[in-house]
């Protein structure tokens, strides 16, 4: 029982991450009709927003280690800590939550720049060319990051108060062995909040209404004399922010390296397509579904029945769903079927 609860929790948590990553991708698909292979790179850039902020906050005074003579080995004492004492320490400790504030404007700018500078010119081009150009962009972006931050993963710890685990068992009245890391619970909550905000925005604002109309029928909206172009730019910016935030919050769970975007790229495409092209609720549902199934497939009991099932579960589910439901869970007819 405890094990099941843990795996459900774990699946929800994974699902939150998948849904968050897929959300922006499906938004771009649905509105702009662009296959964005640079979406993983946006996730990666978000993660490196928090790396960069952490590096900035921990700019340090270097105290040389006298026992090492042939090169500079030093202990680092961050200036913030020297100047502000415990307050400084606390600021550094909260680097990841703080980088959310940094990531929103940065990712918005990156998104706008990408759309204005590149993506816009590819609306009318073939999907194949969109793939080539965005894939090229993704490689260039990750090579730039590699140049500045190296190829190894960079540790970005969560704030100390939530670095440990929560006794979920006690909260739910279950056994004491049901513990779960605080940060993962926060991630789950965070992803739900972001998803809710995006949905509310699209549902309850005029802007959102136009975008949804654009998703349904771009040409008709254009004929109504609405400047759909400007809204597309903003949609792209929003998608970039969502992807970036997913990246920022993921850093304590997975120390980021320059390649992290590519690792998530295929997965996010699978989630989006399983959910159904152009469907936001579909992407979210598929994210949670795949997360939970992946968790259960990794249980020793399941693995001993079906060896290797955890390796292929996501793809297997994708195949089954796409064969049973032609347009994924909640896809609409005619979107990206040609």
């Amino acid at each position: 029982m405890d094990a099941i609860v843990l795996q459900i929790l774990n699946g929800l948590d994974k699902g939150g991450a998948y849904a968050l990553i897929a959300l922006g991708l499906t938004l771009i698909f649905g509105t702009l009709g662009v296959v964005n292979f640079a979406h993983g790179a946006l996730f990666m850039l978000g993660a490196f927003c928090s790396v960069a902020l952490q590096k900035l906050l921990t700019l340090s005074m270097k105290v040389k280690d006298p026992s090492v003579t042939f090169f500079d080995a030093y202990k680092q004492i961050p200036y913030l800590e020297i100047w502000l004492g415990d307050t400084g320490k606390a600021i550094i400790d909260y680097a990841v939550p703080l980088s959310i504030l940094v990531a929103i404007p940065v990712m918005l700018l990156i998104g706008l720049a990408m759309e204005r500078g590149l993506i816009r010119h590819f609306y009318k081009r073939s999907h194949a060319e969109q793939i080539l150009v965005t894939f090229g962009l993704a490689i260039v972006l990750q090579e730039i990051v590699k140049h500045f931050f190296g190829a190894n993963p960079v540790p970005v710890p969560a704030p100390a108060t939530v670095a440990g685990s929560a006794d979920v068992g006690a909260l739910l009245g279950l056994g004491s062995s049901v513990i779960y890391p605080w940060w993962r619970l926060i991630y789950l909550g965070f992803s739900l909040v972001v998803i809710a905000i995006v949905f509310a925005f699209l549902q309850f604002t005029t802007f959102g209404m136009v975008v949804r109309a654009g998703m349904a029928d771009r040409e008709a909206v254009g004929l109504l004399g609405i400047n759909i172009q400007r809204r597309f730019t903003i949609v792209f910016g929003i998608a970039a922010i969502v992807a970036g935030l997913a990246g920022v919050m993921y850093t304590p769970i997975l120390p980021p390296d320059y390649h992290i975007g590519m690792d998530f790229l295929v997965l996010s495409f699978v989630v989006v397509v399983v959910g159904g092209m152009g469907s936001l609720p579909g992407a979210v549902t598929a994210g949670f579904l795949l997360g939970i199934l992946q968790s259960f497939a990794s249980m020793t009991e399941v693995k001993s029945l079906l060896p290797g099932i955890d390796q292929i579960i996501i793809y297997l589910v994708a195949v089954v769903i796409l064969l049973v439901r032609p347009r994924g869970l909640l896809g609409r007819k005619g979107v990206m079927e040609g």
Partner: protein
Amino acid sequence: MPIFDGKFTRRRVLQSGLVVGAGLAAPMVMRKRAWAETFRNDPGNNPNIVFGWNVPQTGPYADEGADELKAYQLAVKHLNGEGDGGLMNTMKPCSLKGNGVLGKKVTYVTGDTQTKSDAARASAKRMIEKDGVIMFSGGSSSGVAVAVQSLAQEMGVIFMCGLTHSNDTTGKDKKRYGFRHFFNAYMTGKALGPVLKEEMGTDRKAYHLTADYTWGWTQEESIKETTEAMGWKTVAAVRTPLGAGDFSQYITPVLNSGADVLILNHYGKDMVNSLTQAVQFGLKDKMVNGKKFEIIVPLFSRLMARGAGDAIKGILGTTNWNWSLQDEGSKAFVKSFGQEYGFPPSQAAQTCYVQALLYANACEMAGTFYPPEVIKALEDFQFDGMGNGPTLYRGADHQCFKQVLVVRGNENPSSQFDLLRVIKEVPASEVTYDPKIFGGELGPYKV
């Protein structure tokens, strides 16, 4: 019978093909006979020789590859008599004179393995076919090492392995033209065993998370063998997909399994991720069965461990070499490397540098670049002063036997490089094993 007829005609076709083929191949064979000692990429009268540095320059091990490349460049400098000579001053016995190798200046070419067998072999073939390398070296993964080593055997060019820890490299996949200085999973088990016994007792329940490919399996097997021999029980050994990223679904079952030790048979990025996440799940300060829960990472890499941040503090593991060692060889190498590049060398850098020097030294000893002679010089070569104590390059499987370091993640590092504390230097005799246990066939000297 018609079937026989068919076979017969087919056979005749094959035979006539063989005759034609033999006719075409004859001139080559005769040439081989005429000069018994011709070999691929013979430098002949060329004043230079070329080494090939085949390291991962892109992909997850790019930083490790960059470190390896730096070590090789340093080795070339030293061989050519530039710089402070590095380990050539401390190596015993040493036939190197600092005038290149056999009087020929050493040059080098580089290539990118991408940590993929295909790319690594393509890159190695370029070095052999186009650049005419006499020896090549490098790499950061066992899969690549095994793949490239078999190419070395086919092509008749010696390959000095870089970082590879799988038992297979000098076990069932060993090759006459491949040599490994780095230690292996079996030695890790042997070295770690007594320390584990001392620190954690004999009544422990271990849970393995193992990267689901050959290196992970050999390590799991080796560690299991050691720990079970001293009385530990293995609760479960769960295979995880390579590059899983999030390991949480494999870690949650550990919580309820009753195990009190978690052994992470992961390397590189997988290790960083699984360790970080295991610590987040509170495994480091958990109490089970009245004992403190322990995490073990059998193969540590300082470069990669940095990615796990504070999570590595207090974690036990083994490593091939660490820059904090105080013997003459290690000090000399850290000095040369540190002064050249401004930071200490990693274990990958050390093994690559030593491999380059050992090959050059063997050429000097053999007095020729002719691979079979160089191989014979390397086989059963005993040396000291290279940083791991007295070392034997065993001829039976081309594996080096030397000290293995048991290390612990440093609780209170004195600098950014001071991540691992050496707690025991296990002598070579304790990790030596019978080459027969892994099987395998070295293959011929002449190809």
